[in-house]
């Protein structure tokens, strides 16, 4: 499903954010990516949905080598992934409803289906009553939930989430985790970068710990680590 081999990523300014990572994640797995701030978690995740291309090494997602994708093929590749971005990346000129619907319009879904499904996922993340509002009229946590709704609206094979609970209170966080567990139970692979010790320690899954761009720990059913 997700296969990385000796991946390095050096940014133009010289920072080596990913420094030789090899990892395999299978269909249906649930993986936490943990590590200190600036460790390279987001970069690791950006490599998966091909926002970044590795400087060397190979990243193979669903059997596709992201570095070899032609520019035209990238959007089609991304449609099989659902991504929650650390900075939400909502379209500021579109309403909550339109932001989520956009991901379905892109694959030219039928308008009727779009309407039904969007309302469904907005209900799921608890934002059905705010569907006419624009992102800058939402609280941080609400924006995050819109981003989450958008990531799952197309029922992708893989959901990649970068700190999906960073702006959420514990209760909402648990609700979101329940959603992720549900879609994972249906066979969707979930990869999730997080700082949330509570969640990682309670819902035990595979934990990949990154420090300085390298995997320092990879344990099935592991804990968050990093005790103080």
């Amino acid at each position, binding site marked *: 499903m997700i296969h990385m081999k000796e991946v390095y990523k050096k940014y133009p300014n010289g920072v080596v954010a990913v420094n030789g990572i090899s990892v395999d994640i299978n269909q249906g797995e649930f993986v936490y990516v943990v590590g200190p701030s600036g460790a390279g978690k987001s970069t690791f995740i950006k490599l998966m949905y091909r926002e970044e291309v590795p400087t060397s090494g190979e990243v193979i997602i669903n059997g596709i080598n992201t570095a070899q994708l032609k520019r035209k093929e*990238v*959007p089609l590749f991304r449609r099989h992934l659902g991504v929650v*971005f650390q900075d939400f990346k909502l*379209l500021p000129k579109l309403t909550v409803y339109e932001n989520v619907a956009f991901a379905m319009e*892109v694959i030219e879904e039928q308008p009727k289906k779009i309407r039904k499904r969007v309302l469904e996922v907005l209900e799921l993340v608890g934002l059905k009553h705010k569907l006419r509002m624009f992102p800058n009229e939402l609280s941080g946590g609400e924006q995050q939930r819109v981003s989450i709704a*958008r990531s799952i609206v197309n029922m992708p094979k893989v959901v990649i989430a970068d700190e999906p609970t960073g702006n959420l209170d514990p209760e909402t966080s648990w609700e979101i985790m329940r959603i992720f567990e549900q879609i994972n139970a249906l066979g969707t692979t979930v990869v999730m970068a997080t700082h949330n010790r509570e969640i990682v320690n309670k819902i035990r899954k595979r934990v990949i710990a990154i420090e300085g761009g390298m995997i320092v720990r990879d344990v099935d059913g592991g804990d968050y680590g990093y005790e103080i």
Partner: protein
Amino acid sequence: MKYRTLQRHFRESLKSLSRNGWMSVASISAVTVTLLLVGIFALVMMNLNHFADNIENDVEIRVLIDIINEPEKMKAAEDKLIKQVKSLPEVAEVKYSSKEEELKILIENYGEDFSLYEQSNPLRNVLYVKAKDPQQTAELAKKIDKLDNTYDVIYGEEKVKNLFSFLNTGRNIGLVLILGLLFTAIFLIYNTIRITITARRDEIEIMKLVGATSSFVRTPFLFEGLWLGLFGSIIPIFVVSIVYHYVYNHLTPRIKGEMLQLLDVTPLVFQVNFILLALGIFIGVWGSFMSVRKFLRVY
């Protein structure tokens, strides 16, 4: 692309136009102002060019006719000459002026003194000849000179040469100016569209991150460009029509009978308006296309 997707893009483009609020207004008004400039400039240049044509067309050859003492023979000779001149391929117009008419003109120019010549008129009958292409005047004059019964052929050689050289230079400068203005207009509109789209580069980036193909991102922008061009050319079209109508109606009676005439309203205004509309839409769509392309390429 499915039909309903096209519909969606169409809707989106209108939504986006209104949600981008005054950025859209700024672009539209850039189009408006630039096209207004192009329109008025085109009207002026086309009329100036028309004036130049008029001035050129005013260049005449004066053919003085030999005097033959027997009136019948004279008449025959003159008729023959007129026929010959008329048959020359370069000739556009031939006008006959008797020596009596010539004298009247002379008196007008040189004073009543010449009235005493009304009894024994020393002048000659004259043919005024115009060339089809005024620039052929010199050539034509030479040809006429060779015909029988011409006494002298006069057309202000030096003056005509200078006039033509001047008018041609003027026309070239005009052409350069109008091309320059067109280029400028295209650049300015493109520039404005590009800046507004750049301000939205994040949007484009996000769309692509969510799996939109380039054409999916691009199409609403192209429609938006279309609206910019369309809405931007409305005012110029109205202004050009109304202003030229007004100027034409105001000036024409004043310069009636003068050498310099304004071009008629009907075909001119339609031509210019068509150019404005086409230009507006073309630059709007093309400018959007080029601007979006830049950001679609990234990643």
